[in-house]
């Protein structure tokens, strides 16, 4: 059977597009926009095709250089990674359209090339079946995100960017320490092979394995902004350019994906060395992340910080759902993952519209922009009619039989109230009262603290900000079929043997 070369395209295509855009089109921003949009649309088509090919439950693999696993690097396309690819490309399309519409790409250099590299890294992280290759793709998406984070410059943004870089450099170092430990214990880096070795591990090596797995959890916790590793997120997200922050909504999900992949496949609760150790850790981390996010939403003085803390709260909710560990729990977690990505993107894009529509008159924007903010707040807080409500309902339902049900329910419901109050308070103060300059977005202040002239809002930017909203509405209307697909995805995740068999061949379980 000839290999299915479509699997490598979500990695290769953005990489080539980025190089072409950086080399050949560096002076022509219109050409860059056209290429970038065309590539993203093509990526949606490819991801959708790959997604459909996994719907029957097959797990496709792609052996790079035709090296047989576990010796070569292998890309694995199962239901979860196909879904994440589709999510990434849809989000990227909305963000690229917004960037082209709002002119963010003319405020600095090489936006589209960096963005394509970032998409490449994210897609690669979702596809790879090799632990060290996961590290490499993490670095690719990080180094591109450093460039995007400081896009358009400015002192405060560069300093926030530096914090972000240092935090992630420390994280990368820890990732390598974890890889070294795991390789020393298991003698392999292929995730499927590692899963087999972990199961039949010598009892004397179990402590070392747990150490490596724990360091790895810290690394993914930094990416996912899980308590107590969440401190970098508010400063980074609120100081990043708004469309970049909107796309960063997928970055925290990469951390959540990596946790889900490694701790369902390699360090699964069935193996004697691990047990429920990590699930037990995820629950308090999720509860505390949610709590701090909600408190931050209540206390944030400015809209970008409000949005950043709401991202934190949504990551907390996601981690709680992951920690339930059952099929219904995973289904709820995946649904909430889809929802919170689109909701965070919608919120950040709307905040940029808000910032752009403020002129020198310090007048609060009204009409359409205010209505969009209201809709984004509803989505983020998880109120009906948008999909956040469905997501939280699924999580509450899934945790009904969990031993800590009372804790989970009270925390999710209580923090929902806090988030609603926070958004209502800040929103009504912002949109209904005359503003004082202190509330203005830093984007709109010159170094003396005076508001600068507004960037003209173009209709394309408004249209683009509707993309995540449209996806949220779609997710709400199609909640039934989506949940059915996600339930199958969760079932596949809970049967790691099928993944291992797809990678290593049918006899793999017997050696």
């Amino acid at each position, binding site marked *: 059977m000839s290999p299915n070369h479509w699997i490598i395209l979500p990695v290769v295509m953005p990489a080539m597009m980025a190089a072409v855009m950086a080399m050949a089109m560096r002076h022509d921003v219109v050409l860059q926009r056209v290429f970038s949009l065309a590539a993203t649309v093509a990526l949606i088509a490819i991801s959708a095709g790959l997604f459909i090919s996994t719907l029957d439950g097959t797990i496709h693999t792609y052996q790079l250089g035709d090296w047989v696993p576990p010796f070569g690097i292998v890309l694995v396309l199962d239901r979860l990674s196909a879904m994440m690819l589709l999510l990434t490309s849809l989000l990227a399309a909305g963000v690229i359209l917004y960037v082209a519409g709002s002119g963010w790409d003319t405020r600095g250099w090489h936006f589209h090339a960096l963005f394509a590299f970032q998409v490449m890294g994210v897609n690669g992280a979702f596809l790879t079946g090799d632990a*060290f290759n996961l590290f*490499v793709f993490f*670095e690719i998406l*990080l*180094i591109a995100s*450093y*460039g995007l984070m*400081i896009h358009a*410059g*400015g*002192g*405060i943004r*560069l*300093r*926030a*960017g*530096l*914090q972000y*870089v*240092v935090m992630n*450099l*420390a994280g*990368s*170092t820890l990732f*390598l*320490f974890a*890889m*070294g*430990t795991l*390789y*020393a214990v298991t003698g392999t*880096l292929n995730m499927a092979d590692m899963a087999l070795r972990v199961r039949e591990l010598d009892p004397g090596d179990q402590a070392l394995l747990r150490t490596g797995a724990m360091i790895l959890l810290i690394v993914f916790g930094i990416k996912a902004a899980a308590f107590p590793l969440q401190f970098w997120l508010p*400063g980074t997200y609120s100081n990043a350019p708004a469309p970049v922050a909107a796309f960063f909504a997928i970055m925290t999900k990469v951390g959540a994906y990596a946790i889900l992949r490694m701790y369902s496949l390699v360090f699964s609760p069935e193996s004697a060395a691990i047990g429920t150790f990590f699930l037990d850790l995820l629950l308090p981390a999720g509860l505390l992340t949610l709590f701090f996010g909600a408190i931050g939403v209540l206390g944030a*003085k*400015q809209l970008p910080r409000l949005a950043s803390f709401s991202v934190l709260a949504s990551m907390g909710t996601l981690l709680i759902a992951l920690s339930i560990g059952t099929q219904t729990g995973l289904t709820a977690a995946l649904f909430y993952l889809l929802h919170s990505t689109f909701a965070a993107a919608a919120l950040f894009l709307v905040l940029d519209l808000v910032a752009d529509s403020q002129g020198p008159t310090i007048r609060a924007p009204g009409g359409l922009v205010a209505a969009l903010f209201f809709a984004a707040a509803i989505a983020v807080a998880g109120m009906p009619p948008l999909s956040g409500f469905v997501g939280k309902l699924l999580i509450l339902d899934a945790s009904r039989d969990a031993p800590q049900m009372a804790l989970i329910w009270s925390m999710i419901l209580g923090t929902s109230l806090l988030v609603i109050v926070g958004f209502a308070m800040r929103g009504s103060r912002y949109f209904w009262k005359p503003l004082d*300059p*202190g509330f203005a977005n*830093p984007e709109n*202040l*010159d*170094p*003396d*603290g*005076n508001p600068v002239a507004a960037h003209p809002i173009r209709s394309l930017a408004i249209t683009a900000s509707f993309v995540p909203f449209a996806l949220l509405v779609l997710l709400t209307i199609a909640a039934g079929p989506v949940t059915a697909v996600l339930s199958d995805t969760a079932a596949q995740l809970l049967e790691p043997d099928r993944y291992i068999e797809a990678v290593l061949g049918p006899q793999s379980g017997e050696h």
Partner: protein
Amino acid sequence: MEALLAIVIGLQTAGGVYLILRRRTFSVIIGTALLTYSVNLFLFASGRLAIDMPPIYTPGVENYTDPLPQALVLTAIVISFGMTAVAVLIALGAYLESDIDHIDLRRDPNDLDLDPDEIPWEQDPRDPGLEAPKGDFG
């Protein structure tokens, strides 16, 4: 030999951790560089320490050392080199834009939670230093 290498890696890591907890960007970047050096040594040791053994096929040799960690270290060196360069450039840009080379995001110079003894010898009198950008970025 194992003990010696472990002590070296441990000391180097401790130094790196101490440096990234400092306030100024220069020492933080040196700290991350130290950390990457020590993780490179650590990765090297993860394939067990072996002396005088080739990593690739050589005629007439029976014992080999594990070649994989060497490939990993090579990858890690390249990546950490690039990352350090990016960090230096961003730190330099942040310093030139705002005249502060502190790693924290404090905006209000009156809000010093600094140890008062720490400032005089670190601050150049010609350097406006701790003057924060104006306007409330809270």
